[in-house]
């Protein structure tokens, strides 16, 4: 039984142990993609925790009585379960494993209290057929062992938000079967960050990579609190076909005084500047292509460009998951039964629009 696993030790076969997000980070490292270092707190940790802490039976008993249509019942059950989890004592061997791995990460980065991002990585989340995306919490810029451990525990608890509970009930997904792993990953101190798709989500064009990015941490883009810059790039000839530079008035940044990530205003003259240059765009496209090729299906990728490092070492992939909308759709021929000749004739018979 392993309570933690370094990202370098996991791959897609580790999914039951580390969840989709973490497994995918391991896969990417194997594929040679630059991913910020970190480790996964395994599902075994979670299972062991709820068993050893003696809360397992209580939790599922509460959940069994929930009425998914009744908000009060959902909220009540959720609060009760989350309280149980957050207040339970973590078994010492699990705590020790997290403490050691976080220590190693700090040593590796040469920073005593290395800021990390802590994300839940559920085993049923983000699978192509069950989009649970965004149902668990993410904690940014967490520093120090005790804080890390506390947030890991909160991630476990986030498995039981009212939304998550109701979603599972409505989709007949047993609560007992959803396991949770937690990823602890070095925080990228990003100048710009965002998401990208290995096809054009607007029309399904598989020859494009569409990048959306904004200043600061990627949360501003992911949460939709800012209209990002958008670039549509041909992934084969690497031409930037479209670029939409939006006024990006807000960014997510770490505020050392408050010790947390905050939404901050962006200086007026910076708002309308593109948040990345052409070399960075092309590097991202190259990365997107590699990830897509590695997985063999279209991907939805989160990326970040570090403030301090120099190109191309500054470009990181923080997450990748299968694209779900178009991937399920495109089974039918697009052109249909017509031959190119027939298409040409059809075109030739359409009077040229030569309006005056």
């Amino acid at each position: 039984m392993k309570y933690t696993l370094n990202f370098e030790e996991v791959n897609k076969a580790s999914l039951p142990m580390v969840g989709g997000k973490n497994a995918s980070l391991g896969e990417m490292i194997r594929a040679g993609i630059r991913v910020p270092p970190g480790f996964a707190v395994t599902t075994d940790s979670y299972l062991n925790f709820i068993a050893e802490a003696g809360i397992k039976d209580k939790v599922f008993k509460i959940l069994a009585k929930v009425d998914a249509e009744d908000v009060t019942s959902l909220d009540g059950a959720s609060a009760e379960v989350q309280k149980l989890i957050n207040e339970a004592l973590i078994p010492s061997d699990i705590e020790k494993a997290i403490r050691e791995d976080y220590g190693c990460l700090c040593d590796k980065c040469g920073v005593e209290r290395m800021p990390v991002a802590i994300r839940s990585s559920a085993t049923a989340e983000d699978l192509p057929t069950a989009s649970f995306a965004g149902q668990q919490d993410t904690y940014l810029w967490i520093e120090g062992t005790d804080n890390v451990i506390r947030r890991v525990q909160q991630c476990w608890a986030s498995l039981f938000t009212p939304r998550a509970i109701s979603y599972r009930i409505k989709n007949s997904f047993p609560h007992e079967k959803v396991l949770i792993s937690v990823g602890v990953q070095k925080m990228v101190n990003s100048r710009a960050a965002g998401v990208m798709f290995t096809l054009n989500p607007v029309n399904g064009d598989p020859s494009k990579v569409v990048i959306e990015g904004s200043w600061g941490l990627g949360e501003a883009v992911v949460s939709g609190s800012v209209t990002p810059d958008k670039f549509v790039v041909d992934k084969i000839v690497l031409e930037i076909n479209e670029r939409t530079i939006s006024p990006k008035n807000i960014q997510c940044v770490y505020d050392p005084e408050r010790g947390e990530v905050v939404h901050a205003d962006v200086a007026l003259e910076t708002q309308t500047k593109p948040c990345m240059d052409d070399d960075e765009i092309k590097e991202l496209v190259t990365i997107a292509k590699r990830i897509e090729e590695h997985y063999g299906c279209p991907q939805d990728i989160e990326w970040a460009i570090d403030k301090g490092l120099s190109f191309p070492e500054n470009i990181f992939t923080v997450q990748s998951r299968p694209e779900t909308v178009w991937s399920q759709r495109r089974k039918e021929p697009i052109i249909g039964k017509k031959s190119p000749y027939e298409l040409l004739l059809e075109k030739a018979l359409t009077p040229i629009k030569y309006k005056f």
Partner: protein
Amino acid sequence: MAKEKVARFPDPHEFKVPKELAGWEEMYPSHYIFAKERGEWEKSQFWYQDKIHDPEPMPPLDLIFHESWQISLSQYTTRVFCIPPAQGIAQRMVGCYMYICAVAPPPEEIIKEKAGYFQKRVFYVFEHYDELWEKWLNKFQKLGREMAAVKIPEELPKYVPEEQVLPAPRGYYASYELIEAFNTLVSMMFKGWQYHFEMLNLTYLAYLMFADVARKLFPGISESAIGKMVAGAYVSMFRPEEELCRLSRLAGSFPEVGKIIKSDVPVEQKIAELSKTEDGRRWLAELEKAKNPWFYVNCGSGWFYYEGSWVNKPAIPFSYMKSYVERLDKGEKIERSLEEISKKRDEIVAEYRKLIKTPEDQKSFEDAYKTVRTIYRYAEDHLFWVEHWFHTIWWDKIRDIGKLFVKYGMLKKVDDIFMFNRFEVPELIEELVTWWALGEGIPLRSRYYMDKAEKRQRILAAARKWSPIPALGIPPKEVAEPFTVMLWGITTDKVAEWLKGAAVVPEKVTEIKGFASSSGVVEGTARVLKLLEEITTLKEGDIMVCPCSNPAWAPVFTKIKAAVTDIGGLTSHAAIVSREYGLPAVTGTGVATSVIRTGDTVRVDGDRGIVIIVKRAR
């Protein structure tokens, strides 16, 4: 209510050219002038300056190429291959510049009628392309050889030679020979251009067909990405350059020959020195072999007599060879690998193909691609044989006639013959041979023709200084005629820009738009080249700005960082060569050579088709 002002260009019948151009109408045949008798029709069309074939004022005799293409291109569209919605391209002259218009589509019933012919004829040619191409090339080369064999009398003899009289009089003599020679040359030029369009329109159709399929499969695919899949190496067009590489390598292998090639003496002296040694003579023999046809490549677009060809401007190929030999000395590779180019293209195609999910779509893509690639052979090769080889033969022959005019004092310079259009040259010939036939002591009307030639040179010089208005008449709301877009690069946006741009001061412009013809972004110093001769001023790493490039410019592309042209769409020469060399290119800007000045710092964005003037030269 205020009357809505319609955005339009001047009425061609009322448009006035600068007074320095007075008399320009006499230089061209009367059917090339906007005229009241067909004013209604002329007014209802949209005319734009043909910057692709004649960015410069038109020398009267060079109009013959255009006379022949107007008929040929149009007839293939309307009467031969019957492309249903398309009509011909009409031409007019205004102030020494040519204006053209894509005639508005025919009525619905004609479109339907043409469809039947179109289907049967066009698809047949698509299917039988390979054998047809062989036939075409044989036929065309035969015509060129026949033209080269047309005999121009070297003189009008005082008394015709004995053998033309005894034992039996031949019955026709130098006078008739000269009349006939010119008429034959004219007929052959028209025939050559009839051949020229045999398959050209079809290559554009094949391109449109493939582009349509590609856009259905990849909705956001750019024109330049499609271009990259289609364009290959202009096999014949790159031959002249390959021959130079071959000759340079050969020169490098004979130390003495290499030294002479690298020396800074005039070409004549180089040749004289080469012929002194055995190795030199061997090299000269190889040069001789390469000359016909490969040195018949024109130094310009192939449309103007004064551009010249390598074969009659040997300083140009010799300067290329000098730099090639020098590069070989440094151990550099001078050849471009055509295979490499094709390989790269195939890789791009394979990547797109891999993204197609169903076998049905894969087949459609495959079929359309196969057709376009097969047919493109014509687009890639005909240019050398027609605009270069054939035109060079024509000019040489015409100059032989010009020499006679000079010999007998009718014209001052050989090239003055180009100041007379093809209907006028027979008059000059008739005057000359009449003078000869009449006997001794007859006055020639020399002064009249010399003055005329001089006056026309002056008008052309004035026209060169004038920036002709980009268009006349009422612009269409939308330009969709495929040849207009593909070949001339005229789009709806372009027309809108012209409408806005009439009052623009070139010095104030900071950004110009064109086609994103070859991807990449670079910044550098601009070098504006109007004529190929000016390439000697080009420095390594310059950004070339020119009206439109052509294959004789190919060696230039190894020196430059990016290319910007006034004219040309995605399949223009500069676009294709830039893609092959991996240089950013923006083509079809319409105004680059008038807005950008040599020394300006410019940023060429080949991804978006934008050129930004970052800093003006002092």
